[in-house]
C-alpha cells in the first residue's frame, strides 16, 4: 500500500554507485518540478559531494524506471522505483 498523498520515489543504487554514495536504497520526496529521470538525477546531484561527482552530467550513469532502461526524458511518478547504476559488465 502506498501513501498517495506524498510523491515518494524509491531510489536504488547499484555496484560502484552504491559504494560511492554509501547507500543502496532510499525513499525521497522531491519537489513537484522533478518529473523526469533527468530532472531527478540533477536534483540528486545538487546534494553535492559524492552525489555531484557520481551523477555529474558527463558521467556514464544508466537509469532504470520500474526495471526498464530509461532516458533523461522518461517520466517519473510517485511510487516508481528508479535505479541508478554504471554501464553494465555482465556476460
Amino acid at each position: 500500500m502506498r501513501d498517495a498523498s506524498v510523491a515518494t520515489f524509491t531510489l536504488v543504487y547499484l555496484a560502484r554507485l552504491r559504494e560511492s554514495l554509501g547507500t543502496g536504497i532510499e525513499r525521497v520526496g522531491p519537489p513537484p518540478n522533478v518529473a523526469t529521470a533527468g530532472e531527478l538525477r540533477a536534483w540528486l546531484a545538487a546534494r553535492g559531494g559524492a552525489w555531484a561527482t557520481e551523477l555529474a552530467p558527463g558521467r556514464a550513469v544508466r537509469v532504470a524506471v520500474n526495471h526498464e532502461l530509461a532516458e533523461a526524458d522518461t517520466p517519473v511518478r510517485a511510487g516508481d522505483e528508479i535505479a541508478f547504476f554504471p554501464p553494465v559488465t555482465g556476460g
Partner: protein
Amino acid sequence: MTGSRVTRVRIQTEDFDVGAELAALRRGNAAIGAVAAFVGTVRDLNDAATVAAMTLEHYPGMTEKSLRAILDEASTRWTIIDSFVIHRVGPLRPTDQIVLVGVAAAHRGEAFAACEFIVDYLKTRAPFWKKEQTPDGPRWVDARASDDAAAQRWR
C-alpha cells in the same frame, strides 16, 4: 509432452552443467536440428591486471526481466524453438563458468545468429556488474566500447 523448459532465465550462485542443460533444452523435441551455445568464463588477466577473483552483482527483478525480454526479442527475429540463459552471481574465480546461453532451432543458421544476438544484448543491456580483486585492490570493471559496437550492429 512438451520439450520446452519451465524456466528460461536463471540467476544463481552455483555452477551449472553445460551438457545437462543442453540436453534438457532439446529433450523430447525431434523438431530441433541445431543447438548453439555460448559459455562465458572468468579470465585471469583483464586490462593488464592479474585477477585473483571477482564478484558479480545484479539487480534482482530487473535482471530477470531484461533477460526474458532479450530472449523474446531473439525469438521474434529468428525462427527458434527454445532458448535459455543461466547467469551466475556472487564470488567467482579464474576458469569458473559465468554464463551459459543455449538456443535450439531447426537449422544452424538461426541457432548461431540468435545465440550471438542474445550474448551481445546481454553484455550491454542486462544489469550485471563485475568487481575484480587485483594485486592493487578491488576494482569495478569498466564497460567496453567494443561491446556497445557488437550490440549496435543488430539494430
